[in-house]
């Protein structure tokens, strides 16, 4: 049997305008990486059609459970300032937990 180790997956859906801010945040929090997928959608602020000035991104970050809270606090702060972020946390398992402890490059 392949050994699996628990991690947290944070998924954030928000305007593409916040991409730079989020990446900075991930770097500060020392996450081992992040993944971004282009998205559209609708929510409390109407439709986000995906056009340049109106696009969403879906961002995924895998991180150890003990690093979750600081990141969520940062996000809550963004939301408190009026930014719109849809966020959910899932429990996932990975095959190489050490991969998610080293800060990413670049």
């Amino acid at each position, binding site marked *: 049997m392949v050994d699996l180790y628990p991690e947290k997956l944070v998924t954030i859906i928000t305007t593409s305008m916040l991409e730079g801010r989020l990446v900075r945040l991930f770097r500060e929090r020392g996450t081992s990486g992040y993944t971004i997928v282009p998205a559209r959608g609708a929510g409390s*602020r*109407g439709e986000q*059609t995906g*056009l*340049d*000035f*109106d696009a969403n991104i879906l961002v995924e970050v895998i991180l150890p459970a003990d690093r979750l809270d600081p990141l969520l606090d940062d996000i809550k702060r963004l939301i408190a*300032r*009026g930014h719109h972020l849809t966020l959910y946390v899932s429990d996932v398992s990975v095959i190489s937990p050490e991969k998610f402890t080293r800060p990413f490059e670049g």
Partner: protein
Amino acid sequence: MLSNLMIPAVLFFALGVIARVIKSDLKFPPELAKALSIYLLMSIGLHGGVELAKADLGSAVSAIVWALLLGFGMPVIGYGLLTATRRVGPLDAAAIAAHYGSVSAGTFLAAMAWLDTQGLAYETYPLIMLAVMESPAIVVGLLLAARARQKVRAAAGSNGTATTNGRGEDTTSLRSLLHGAFTNGSVVILVGCMAIGAISLPNAMDKLKPFIDDIFMGALCLFLFEMGMEAARRLQDFKRVGAILAVFGIVMPIVGGAVGALIGSLALDFSVGGATLVAVLAASASYIAVPPAMRLAVPEANPSLYLTLSLGITFPFNVVLGIPLYHAMVTFLAGV
């Protein structure tokens, strides 16, 4: 008058609107819209640069000064009108007003196409104004929003709950916002291509002509086709905006057009064509550069409001009725 509208650029815009209204499944790939707008900015930038190399410095400077005044002044007028409607909070008012101080390259290009069909010449200075006016309004929007936040706080002040956005400024630092305003993509392409057009060797520029001249009108039509669909999509949010705000979306460009016509005709002493373009600049509302900036700088404001107004109401109004109207204003002033 109606026959004035029978030019492909306007007709393609209308086709886009119709496609949405009849609920066609037609969709443009989002990247095509973006590619077309990069191309259009590149073309007018290069063109403008070639002309500007021959331009008169004094006229250029006064065009820039008036552009700055328009960019800073229009949002203030807009904010006043919006506050008077009592339909939106001060933060929404600030964000909406910012759009009207900036410009819409699509409207500007439609106006150029319209002038061409009318056989009217125009100066190149409005092109510099287009580049100059992209950004200042963003700054005014930020300042208006900062003031609005103080008001909101003052109103809520007595109950003593410290909100995390107490220091509204840290939402986006002024410095980073100014940086964003003046390095935004459209400004970089426009100003950069003007510079390239101005300093390139003429025989090298000739090789670019087919790309930037010949296929320009077709690309513009395709772009307006897509923007027509986008405008109609927003127009359908009309109810959400409310009738009074919708009226603002038409009154505001008329006010802007009148101010611009005066400046273009009297202050800048441009030809009828050139003054019409200045009126169009003042009348048009940004829907490309300003919305993302407001999302960052005034996140509390509702994007549905400002996108519906600028893209769904003011943009179609300008393309279909505004351009000939501002031309009429300018013609009237020329006759005075």
